[in-house]
């Protein structure tokens, strides 16, 4: 690895800019992410800035179980981001759909739409848990840089099964 590459790698870890996308969450996670920006937690000390345009961001934080309507938008936002890009799914909803699992208008978790790199558990996670999540994502970034890409993680498991066109919905009594 030459010097300029090392420099860029160092900078990537030092300057992760985030953009927030609410894919149908209850706002709880969104508030807590924004709360992490404010004086009590102030994630700018890690170099994290919240960006409005997905074009400027490195990490996409997705909150919410992904409603049917937001799924296509989420995918588009993800595609607009420049490489290397990372995705954090926030809260129980982001991971599995949480309390909305199986409802007729949600697709149950971010992973059914776009690849997710890190999950943060909680409903909602506290801001310090969110910081832990971002740190976990940065750790992943470092490992990826050492492996020269994200592929090393994907190979371990077979490709995730494509989301079914129609999914089972909660049965009504």
């Amino acid at each position: 690895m030459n010097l300029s590459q090392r420099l860029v790698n160092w900078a990537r870890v030092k300057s992760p800019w985030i953009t927030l996308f609410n894919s149908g969450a209850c706002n709880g996670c969104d508030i807590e992410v924004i709360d992490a920006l404010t004086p009590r937690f102030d994630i700018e000390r890690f170099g994290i800035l919240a960006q409005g345009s997905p074009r400027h961001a490195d990490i996409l934080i997705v909150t919410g179980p992904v409603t049917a309507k937001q799924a296509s938008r989420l995918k588009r936002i993800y595609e607009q981001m420049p490489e290397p890009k990372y995705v954090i799914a926030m809260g129980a909803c982001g991971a599995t759909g949480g309390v909305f699992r199986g409802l007729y208008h949600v697709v149950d978790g971010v992973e059914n739409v776009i690849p997710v790199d890190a999950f943060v558990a909680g409903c909602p996670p506290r801001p310090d848990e969110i910081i832990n999540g971002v740190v976990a994502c940065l750790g992943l970034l470092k490992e990826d840089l050492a492996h020269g890409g994200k592929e090393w993680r994907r190979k371990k498991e077979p490709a995730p099964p494509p989301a079914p066109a129609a999914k089972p919905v909660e049965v009504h009594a």
Partner: protein
Amino acid sequence: MSVLKEMFENLTHKPATILYPKEKVPIPPAFRGRIAIRDEKCIGCSKCAVVCPTQCITMVANERPVEVKGKTITRKKKPEVELFACIRCGLCEEYCPTDPKAIYLTNEFSGAGTDKGVVVK
């Protein structure tokens, strides 16, 4: 002008920031955190799995004799929790009939990870 005054006061005072990884943000005793299971207390009644709003608790086969109200019976199942689906509402703890609770919420963080399939046993 009150804004200017406060701005320059802030400049000379210590910031309100808690330097999180170095300093810990106080966690109140009531905090509902990561779910935990005391397997030795569980009697396999399935109440937690029934009441869970996200249905993240599944009862898996695990036969073992347990003592309930002085009698010894054989429990058939024990709970397992999908950590990343848990919303930390505490209903399972509330409905758990044992003392101390066999399933309960701790004061710790639930954590973050790359694998959402983490199961709490």
